[in-house]
């Protein structure tokens, strides 16, 4: 409809032979497979569930005047930890400092075919398939179990600001690893696919911190392959941007695991943010707990959706979906949808969604103590966000 597939295919043709020929043959084969699939798919339209409330046309348009607001922003270092910083840019991964023993980093071209996680894309995820087709940078980050928790900070820092950059990060966490991973946007127009392959007993605290100015765009598809006895907390801060589109896809592949996610989505001006979490309870005795807090102002819009699918026999699954939203102006829009699709018998599930304005009584309460209306609103928004702040 908007010529996206045509655009992606043209970009394939424009890619230099050198950049392709440097890739190992197995990776070239993956790209070829993506090309064949892309040619069979239809143009993405608003009929796609995950793009229903976003303007696909913005994917084509180069962002207007780049604002350097985010340059040099302070990285949010998790307190009490000393992160290994990995910068991802045109040249690939660049580690800052020495690479510790517990960490193995391989660029795309150095990856082995057997390490590659084969993500499945379809018509619904055609925009993410473009990542496999036009893949430029990224690779494998493998983390071994250690005595103490470790922390990695992955920073997107691209010089080219109006061209899409296709990045794939595959995190393999070995059994028993205890890891914090902070993924942070500094600059660039990014289409990212992140794979978190989590072996048994892994503890993962992941933070996705995407704070964009009103011209910037970021699309991400995030896979969590969860083995048995795994504990994941996934905290997402999605703020601003001409377009932010994030899909989190969680597969419980064993028993006794927990996936807990919190999302704070904040949009202003003409921003568009989509935040979707799909959790597949394929096995017994797993828990998912999704909390979204979204705030839209001016003419911006947010779509947030949490879906849990419980397979036949996945008894003792526990699911909670809590989506709350605040509209700060009459022109702002929020679409919010919790969904449960349950095929097992013994399941505990709760879901809810609300959309409203800031509570007038609470604002008055703050004012009655001397706080002016603007500060009262800020306090109320902070209070609202805190409910989704899971780590």
């Amino acid at each position: 409809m908007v010529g996206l597939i045509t655009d992606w295919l043209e970009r394939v043709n424009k890619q230099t032979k050198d950049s392709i020929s440097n890739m190992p043959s197995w990776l070239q084969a993956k790209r070829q497979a993506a090309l064949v699939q892309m040619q069979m798919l239809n143009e993405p339209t608003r009929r796609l569930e995950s793009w229903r409330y976003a303007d696909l046309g913005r994917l084509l348009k180069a962002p207007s005047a780049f604002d350097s607001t985010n340059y040099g922003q302070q990285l949010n270092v998790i307190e009490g930890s000393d992160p290994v910083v990995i910068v991802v840019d045109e040249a690939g991964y660049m580690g800052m400092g020495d690479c510790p023993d517990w960490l193995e980093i391989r660029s795309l071209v150095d990856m082995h075919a057997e390490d590659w996680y084969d993500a499945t894309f379809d018509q619904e995820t055609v925009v993410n398939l473009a990542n496999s087709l036009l893949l430029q940078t990224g690779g494998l980050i493998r983390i071994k179990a250690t005595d103490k928790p470790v922390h990695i900070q992955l920073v997107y820092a691209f010089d080219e600001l109006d061209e899409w950059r296709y990045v794939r990060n595959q995190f393999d966490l070995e059994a028993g690893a205890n890891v914090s991973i902070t993924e942070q946007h500094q600059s660039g127009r990014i289409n990212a696919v992140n794979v978190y392959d989590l072996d048994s007993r892994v503890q993962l605290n992941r933070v996705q911190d995407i704070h964009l100015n009103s011209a910037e765009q970021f699309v991400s598809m995030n896979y969590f392959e969860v083995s048995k006895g795994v504990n994941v907390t996934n905290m997402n801060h999605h703020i601003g941007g001409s377009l932010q589109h994030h899909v989190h896809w969680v597969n419980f592949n064993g028993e006794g695991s927990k996936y807990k996610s919190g999302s704070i989505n904040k949009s202003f001006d003409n921003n568009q943010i989509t935040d979707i979490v799909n959790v597949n309870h394929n096995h017994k005795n797993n828990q998912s707990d999704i909390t979204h807090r979204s705030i839209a102002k001016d003419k911006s819009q947010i779509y947030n959706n949490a879906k849990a699918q419980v397979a036949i026999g996945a008894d003792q699954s526990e699911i909670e979906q809590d989506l709350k939203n605040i509209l700060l102006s009459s022109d702002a829009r929020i679409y919010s949808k919790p969904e449960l699709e349950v095929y097992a018998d013994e399941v505990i599930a709760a879901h809810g969604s609300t959309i409203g304005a800031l509570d007038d009584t609470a604002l008055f309460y703050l004012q009655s103590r001397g706080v002016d209306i603007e500060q009262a609103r800020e306090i109320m928004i902070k209070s609202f966000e805190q409910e989704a702040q899971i780590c």
Partner: protein
Amino acid sequence: MLKIDHVFANAGEKEILKGLSLEVKPGEVHAIMGPNGAGKSTLGNLLAGMPYVEPQGGSVEYMGQDLLSLEPEERAAVGVFLAFQYPVEIPGVNNMYFLRTALNAQRKYRGEEPMDSAQFLRMVKQKIKDMNMRDDLLKRPVNVGFSGGEKKRNEVFQMGVLEPKLAILDETDSGLDIDALKIVADGVNQLRSPDRSFIIITHYQRLLDYIEPDFVHVLADGKIVKSGDKNLALELEEQGYGWLNN
């Protein structure tokens, strides 16, 4: 200190206050009693500036100012405090932060220097000790997970920290057991001073056993229909409000 002259006010679409007059002098404690729906809470909300309550006529003069022309936060800064009947929960914002923000906002309005963290901490710790309240109250999010009694105690504690000149207590006794009632009443009595006045809105005489009022008023159908001393509260306790219609 406060002169309410023939005030009319609506709560939403409904006319609630219908020509209410009341004068409160510095240091006085006035109890307002009355049947359900008489307009007691509306009076408290009107004085504190709740947007839902709209004045329709009359005047309210507070320390020489037109109170009704001020924003709610300005009223707080000039010394008006409303202890809510249903205190609001604010998750994620602890009492300490909330109170310091409020106190410094009031000080800023009055042209005073802000109180730094260390000064503030010393002050609130002393206050909470003086008021026989537990100091874990300070670290907890405002009213979140508080019992009914704790919420009311927190209101009185906030009042102690903010040191208003006119405190309006809207059914602060409702839902309190006798021990909590005594703590709340002690807190109020500690704050009594020659330059601080109280309007205590209550349904029951029992609070007035602990906070002795100078005046008791009966509010019915939007205006004060009878005033007297503390013995009026005892009469109301014995006979209810029906006899006032005779």
